[in-house]
């Protein structure tokens, strides 16, 4: 099948639009309301083309191409019409910058911080010059406006958390509305009012916090103008340095575009490259930068002398730490590994401990221990099955123990894609927080018993007397069984109690097998739990998750916070320092109640300041890069670990660069690829391989509202407002 465009024939693909085929063949057609990820809108009228046999011009973006269509895209009358339509748009868009004769010079020279409340021209446009409108102006060669211009003068929305809205700049392309509904499944905003007053807003124009908004920033990202802007970045303009990185605020591992200026991180935006399909959540999108630039960072190494923590040189701090640690027998030393460290950092951490001859290592996660117990005995590795994007093809999705609001929030994008294709979505949760709006929500009294019932209903449906839980379980069971492909997602809510968590994890796997599932994913309660496990930084594991408990290689298998521990090396806050501990080394970017009690403090990095690799909840390898300068004397964690290893006189710390460590880990850590999925073992080979002591402590300060133990709200006031409105009261 072919179509003729501007006199040339092109092959066409069934179902594509005129714009699709033009784009494929590098034929330029101006567009504004079109966005490749969103449904066709046909509103802005800039893509009008002439098609033989049609009385009127048709929008290329919304018109399906047909065999033998004859299309003209560039005739003078078309361009003329497009120009006149564009001028009508510009007559209401504060467009000084767009048609100003001095624009080019001005762009280079104009000052960065834009402090005007009202937007009157390019100097005050918050869109950091990423202006789709201007691109079209340039392409069509518009340099004047022939109708009277008018400033709409509608009120600004400046009270919302994170997001400023100024609809004086809005051109009503509707991209924000579509992304919110179609991609995020949220529908917080819609077209409101009509005629010339038509605008975008929430129901009854109420504040965003009272709407279903999840502050993911998707609207800001697709807006072709500066109407929607982040409060945080509108003052800092264009970054000097940009790069690609991965978010570690939660385990979804979103690929991010990051920007730096003045040696500081200034922006994080979801990138096209990851499984997050250019989407993120409020933590990655709006909290990383203020958290990184927090005023409360640990900036100097410190050592306690005479009961006071005093700043010292790095050498002194390390010497003090080495001296302290060496004063104890290996089995008396414990280490807590933060789930926000990179794979490389976690690898070095365990190498220190094992170099010292101790296996007293635990991950600061409520999920890691129970999972290690439940899945570690039944699978070859503790790892999910399938990927986040596989969820899109599933016909039934079961989410247990989370509402996808702050943990792996971006998976909701995939869940919603499945729902749009007709999948049934169930959310079993206990917290009364808002979740995915299209889900069938079930709120049992407890997770463990409910999962038991669910499994029963799958195996022997309808045998037991009706109860509300039983009926709900029956509903889920029949949907899961009817589906060709199912996804089961298990989240941190079910792991508040280690024993219940272990049970839920076990039952989830059984359920997955019973319904012949496609996707089974742990929505970890830490950004890089999977990576830390892969690095072997937990009891009984070595890199690559080889279980070595029975080999007798390590001298102790103690709970690092349990009895007999006298020295602690912490990279994450713990609920409290156990009695009997005499010496504490605390390494991290933020202080805490615990660090006050430390003997040595080693200031280190946030994920946004380090380099290395992280593994997402579905095993995707993400790489972290940064151009940020750390606060004062703080160092990236991996450097601190190297220094520490060397200072302890241990072997295997002669690394110069992160890449060397990556190689030493010995795993296929190719960014963008996935590690192999977990593989359930044959029935007979299953056993409980790790004992209860793996991770008995908790609950850990690792809720979705924290990063490395630090309450995000302490540095990001707006986060407090949002989290509180959602019922996150921690």
């Amino acid at each position: 099948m072919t179509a003729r465009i501007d006199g040339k024939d092109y092959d066409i693909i069934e179902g594509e639009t005129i714009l699709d085929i033009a784009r494929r063949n590098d034929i330029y057609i101006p567009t504004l309301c079109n966005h490749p990820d969103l449904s066709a809108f046909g509103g802005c009228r800039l893509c009008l083309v002439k098609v033989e046999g049609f009385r009127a011009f048709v929008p290329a973006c919304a018109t399906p191409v047909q065999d033998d269509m004859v299309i003209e895209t560039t005739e003078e009358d078309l361009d003329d019409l497009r120009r006149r339509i564009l001028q009508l748009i510009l007559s209401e868009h504060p467009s000084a910058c767009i048609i100003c004769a001095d624009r080019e010079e001005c762009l280079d020279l104009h000052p960065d911080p834009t402090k005007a409340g009202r937007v009157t021209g390019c100097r005050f446009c918050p869109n950091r010059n990423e202006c789709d409108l201007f691109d079209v102006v340039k392409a069509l060669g518009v340099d004047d406006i022939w109708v009277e211009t008018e400033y709409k003068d509608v009120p600004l929305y400046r009270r919302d958390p994170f997001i400023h809205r100024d609809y004086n700049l809005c051109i009503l392309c509707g991209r924000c509305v579509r992304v919110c509904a179609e991609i995020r499944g949220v529908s917080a905003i819609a077209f409101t009012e009509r005629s010339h007053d038509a605008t975008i807003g929430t129901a009854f124009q109420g504040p965003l916090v009272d709407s279903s908004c999840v502050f993911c920033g998707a609207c800001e990202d697709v807006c072709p103008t500066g109407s929607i802007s982040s409060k945080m970045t509108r003052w800092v303009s264009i970054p000097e340095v940009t790069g690609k990185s991965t978010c570690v605020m939660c385990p979804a591992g979103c690929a991010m575009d990051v920007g730096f200026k003045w040696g500081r991180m200034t922006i994080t935006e979801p990138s096209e490259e990851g499984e997050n399909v250019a989407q993120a959540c409020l933590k990655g999108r709006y909290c990383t930068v203020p958290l990184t630039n927090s005023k409360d960072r640990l900036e100097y190494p410190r050592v306690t002398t005479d009961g006071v923590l005093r700043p010292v040189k790095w050498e002194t701090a390390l010497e003090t730490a080495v001296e302290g640690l060496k004063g104890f027998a290996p089995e008396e030393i414990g280490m807590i590994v933060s789930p926000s460290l990179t794979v490389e950092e976690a690898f070095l951490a365990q190498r220190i401990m094992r170099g010292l001859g101790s296996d007293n290592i635990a991950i600061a996660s409520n999920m890691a221990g129970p999972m290690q117990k439940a899945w570690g005995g039944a699978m070859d590795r503790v790892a999910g099955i399938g990927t986040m994007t596989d969820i899109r093809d599933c016909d039934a999705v079961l989410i247990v123990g989370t509402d996808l609001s702050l943990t792996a929030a971006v998976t909701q994008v995939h869940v919603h894609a499945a729902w749009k294709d007709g999948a049934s979505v169930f959310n079993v949760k206990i917290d009364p927080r808002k979740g995915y709006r299209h889900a069938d929500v079930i709120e049992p009294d407890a997770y463990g018993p409910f999962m038991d019932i669910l499994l029963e209903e799958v195996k022997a449906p309808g045998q037991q007397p009706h109860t509300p839980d039983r009926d709900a379980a029956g509903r889920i069971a029949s949907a899961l069984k009817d589906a060709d492909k199912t996804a089961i997602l298990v989240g941190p809510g079910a792991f508040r109690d280690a024993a219940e968590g272990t049970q839920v994890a076990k039952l989830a796997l059984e359920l997955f097998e019973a319904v012949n599932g496609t996707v089974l994913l742990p929505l970890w309660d830490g950004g890089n739990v999977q990576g830390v496990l892969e690095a072997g930084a937990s009891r009984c594991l070595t890199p690559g998750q080889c279980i070595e408990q029975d080999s007798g290689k390590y001298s102790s298998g103690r709970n690092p916070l349990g009895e007999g521990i006298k020295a602690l090396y912490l990279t994450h806050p713990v609920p409290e320092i156990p009695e009997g501990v005499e010496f504490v080394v605390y390494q991290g970017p933020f202080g805490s109640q615990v660090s006050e009690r430390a003997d040595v403090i080693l200031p280190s990095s946030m994920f946004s300041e380090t380099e290395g690799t992280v593994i997402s909840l579905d095993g995707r390898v993400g790489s972290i890069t940064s151009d940020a300068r750390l606060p004062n004397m703080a160092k990236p964690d991996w450097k601190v670990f190297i220094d520490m290893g060397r200072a302890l006189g241990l072997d295997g710390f002669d690394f110069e660069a992160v890449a060397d460590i990556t190689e030493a880990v010995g795993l296929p850590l190719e960014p963008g690829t996935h590690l192999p999925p977990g593989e359930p073992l044959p029935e007979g080979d299953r056993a409980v391989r790790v004992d209860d002591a793996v991770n008995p402590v908790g609950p850990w300060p690792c809720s979705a509202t924290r990063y490395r133990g630090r309450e995000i709200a302490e540095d990001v006031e707006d986060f407090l407002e949002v989290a509180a409105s959602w019922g996150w009261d921690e």
Partner: protein
Amino acid sequence: MTDFDVLKAEADKVWDDLQSTDGVVYLGTASCGIAAGIGEVKRETERWMAENGADLRLSEVGCIGTCCFEPLVSIQVHGNPPVAYGPVEGRTMGGLLDSIITHKRYPTEALLGSIGDAFGDVPSIWDHPVTATQKRIITENNGIIDPVELEHYISQGGFEGLKKALAMTPDEVIETVLESGLRGRGGAGFPSGRKWQMCRQNRTDKSYMVCNADEGDPGAFMDRSILEGDPYRLLEGLTTASYAIGADEAYIYARAEYPLAIKRLRIAIAKLEEVGFLGEDIMGSGFSLSIHIKEGAGAFVCGEETALLASIEGKRGMPRPRPPYPAQEGLWGKPTVINNVKSLASVPAIMRLGAEHFASIGSEGTKGTAVFALTGKVKYPGLVEVPMGTTIREIVEGIGGGVPDGGKLKAVQTGGPSGGCIPESMLDLPVDFESLQQAGAIMGSGGMVVMDEETCMVDVARYFISFTQYESCGKCPPCRIGTKKMKDILERICDGNGDPGDIEVLEEIGSTVRMGSLCQLGGTAPNPVLSTIKYFREEYEAHISDGRCPAAVCKPLVTYTIEPDECIGCTLCAKNCPVSCIAGAPKEAHVIDQHQCVKCGMCHSICPKDAVKKTSPGRKEVVE
């Protein structure tokens, strides 16, 4: 299920009984009649009956179309056909009944004629100039039968068309409609048969039939009259269409401002379900259909078919680009046909009388009849049904009786707010889709507003563009912004602040809006402006260059003065002026202080001698 022939026989009997009953009073109780006061007439009739111990039968019928004569009653006695009177009033009703029923005399006052043949001194209403040239197909039962009485409708040939259709294959039905030449009456005039065919070809598991009864044009009430006056006709047409396209579900999208129409539709649907003309296995044919009524919330744009579908789906009423056409992807993505009330109401006659009969009426390109709501400066406003191709002059001057009180006709506006103005010189234009389009107007859904010399064409353009601007959904910039700009400029011109070049800017924006808009709301919105510029350019120029409103309508350009020779000094004007700017002693000529005058026109309307003159002298004189 009831056998059709049995039903038909029963219906004929009911109707014949009614016709031969002595003492039936037919009351025109459509919305128009109710608004005009038929309720009072009905109460008076009942009171008269009680007082005189008379046993009259009251039958509530729809609107016969002659709005100018509402409230309208017909009285049937002595074996004569019903005789129509209008306008009647509650207080004259008793007298009327006295003379006809008691004294067997037909008074001549307010007499319109017999609904049937002439007899004695009573002429036939069908010879009245208002009705003589009309051709009633769609509205044939209006004002004659009781709209909710199924037997009445059947007795008039109702459901014979559907019965025939169900005996044919769907393709044969479509073929018949194609042959009849029926074109959509909703505005665009798309051949209905072709639309049905397209939908049938695209049918997969499901398709929908939708009746567009949104009728959002201000001043238009044709669809309402049909829904209120003959709902079964629409339902028969809708069922026939659903059968043809293979839909088992149909929607009627009716505006919520039509409560009476909706009520009668609901009653009618329930009755049809009862006798098996709707629901499962209609007339034993195996064809099933359920009809839903969806009430629209009164947005003009929701009459546009894709916006209408969005609205039924519960979404914001915003149009979307076509293709894909609704016949390809319509309601919930399924092939859907949307037809106007009048299009569907034409179908029963086509099926019953045959395609050739329908095709024999009308003009070359447009078959059948046109239904207009004739309003404005005419003697006999009302609902008019004429064969397509009738000239505008015949409608306005023949049926409408021309401009009342010796006024002079200036222009006729057709097609509702987005139609165009046709000047007096072009009144011999025949009404059909093509000729109106060529003249810069449109058929639209059928409004026809007559304007006389006291109408300012710039003001008219301003009025209509304000309406379309307000009703724009806001989706596309040409319509959302362009109509606003045009409205702003027209307001300036009407305020006397027009600039040279405004006309050209209006034309340029107008063509941008016309060519660039997504839907035909925007596509036709500039029509009133462009057509008035085309035919009445000098009026624009007078406003812009002379500051003068030739029709003396635009307030800022109007001056009120008192002609000293004609003023008798009665002081009425001075007493009534809200800003007390009229001076003058009793019995002496009064004078208006121009600087204080707020141009309310009170003095002009109150002066018993017409000594207050309303003029628009233009800029220079005002300065003096």
